[in-house]
């Protein structure tokens, strides 16, 4: 009885084994696997799967997902090259245009002004206006009023956009010349003006100490030591004036960095005004 039972199981396993009729490498299944990888965030492998069926399926969603994959991988130029000419019949043509601008901005942050003759959905045309406006902040000169700049942004984005505009148009730069002059008059004050309080106090103490030691040694008749401290004091004084100018320049570099970083954060936070896609729901 047991022998028959085992024989039956073996026989069934052979007959109802995985059949050849299920084609795991069919374009649909490859696409499904690509979708799975895409949702897992494995964009490199997802794009490979999509690439293998791209020409067979001729699917707009697949093509757009490939664009998203390349963009997420940091291959912005490759992403944009997928749609050199936008097909206005594609259901994704709005998304493609927005993603193209995002890729351009990520590739090289600069002022990009894009306008279309073809009517676009209002959500996307507003998104493009927002990107146009935000990218203006990357340029040297914004050349538009604050109200004009803020016009496309909604209430939620307005505050951050306004503060970025203010920072760009009125950056709180420090004057290197003024910092130098201040430190020339009272050592260390130029550094304090540039926000380096502790360095400023140190400069004041060191230069003052050298001046005192020089004076005290000359006063006590120790001329050699007096001259040594005078020379050292002169260099510390010169270094303090020089350092104050450099500190103001570094402060200004920090402001420029903060502006660039702020724009990037603002765009990242709003996902470059791209809509939320439900590809993985």
């Amino acid at each position, binding site marked *: 009885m047991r022998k028959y039972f085992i024989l039956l199981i073996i026989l069934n396993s052979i007959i109802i084994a995985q059949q050849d009729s299920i084609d795991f490498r069919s374009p649909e299944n490859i696409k499904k696997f690509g979708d799975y990888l895409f949702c897992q965030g494995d964009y490199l492998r997802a794009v490979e799967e999509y690439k293998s069926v791209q020409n067979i399926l001729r699917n707009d969603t697949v093509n757009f997902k490939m664009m998203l994959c390349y963009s997420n991988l940091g291959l912005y130029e490759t992403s944009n090259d997928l749609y050199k000419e936008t097909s206005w019949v594609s259901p994704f043509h709005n998304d493609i245009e927005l993603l193209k601008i995002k890729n351009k901005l990520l590739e090289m942050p600069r002022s990009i002004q894009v306008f279309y003759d073809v009517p676009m959905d209002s959500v996307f045309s507003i998104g493009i206006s927002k990107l146009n406006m935000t990218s203006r902040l990357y340029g040297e000169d914004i050349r538009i009023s604050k109200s004009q700049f803020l016009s496309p942004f909604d209430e939620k984005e307005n505050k951050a956009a306004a503060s970025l505009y203010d920072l760009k148009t009125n950056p709180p730069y420090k004057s*290197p010349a003024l910092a130098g002059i201040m430190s020339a008059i009272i050592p260390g004050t130029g550094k304090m003006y540039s926000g*380096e*309080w*502790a*360095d400023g*106090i*140190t*400069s004041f103490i*060191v230069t003052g100490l050298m001046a005192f030691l020089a004076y005290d040694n000359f006063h006590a008749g120790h001329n050699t030591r007096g001259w040594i401290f005078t020379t050292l004091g002169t*260099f*510390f004084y*010169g*270094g*303090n*004036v*020089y*350092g104050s*100018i*450099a500190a103001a*320049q*570094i402060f*200004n*570099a*920090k402001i*420029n*960095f903060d502006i660039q970083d702020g724009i990037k954060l603002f765009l990242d936070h709003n996902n470059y005004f791209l809509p939320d896609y439900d590809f993985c729901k």
Partner: protein
Amino acid sequence: MRIDFKLVFFVLLFSITAFCQTEQLKWQKADISYEKENNFRHRDYSFQFNDAGEVVKKSLAMTYWFFISDVDGDNCPFRPSCSSFLIDAAKETNILQTSLMFFDRFTRDMNVFKRKNHYPRVKDGHYYDPPLNYTLSETKIQYIPASSVVKE
């Protein structure tokens, strides 16, 4: 074939005893140095007389090494260290500017407050402060936020 377990056990025991760690190896003295390696042991005090300016710059650096750096030990909180900063600054600028940059760096080295939030760090914890930021050329300044860790 019948295995003689007694024999196998005996051979195993014999091999273990014969090839075990010898006393000599086991307790051999290890020459491990716990000294912290100092840069000044690798200083290059040689001169190249091709360029007069180079000789003056190298002399300045060597004077600093001899009188301050080697005496003070590896206590400079910055990278490049003050002497390397002097040499790098000399490569970028002239003697006068190098001196001013160096004295400014020396003053900043003496500042014991608030350095933590002003400089990025290199992997070993030193503050990263490259001379290029102090040449007074705005285009050469590379601002790196203090929270960053820099590859030297």
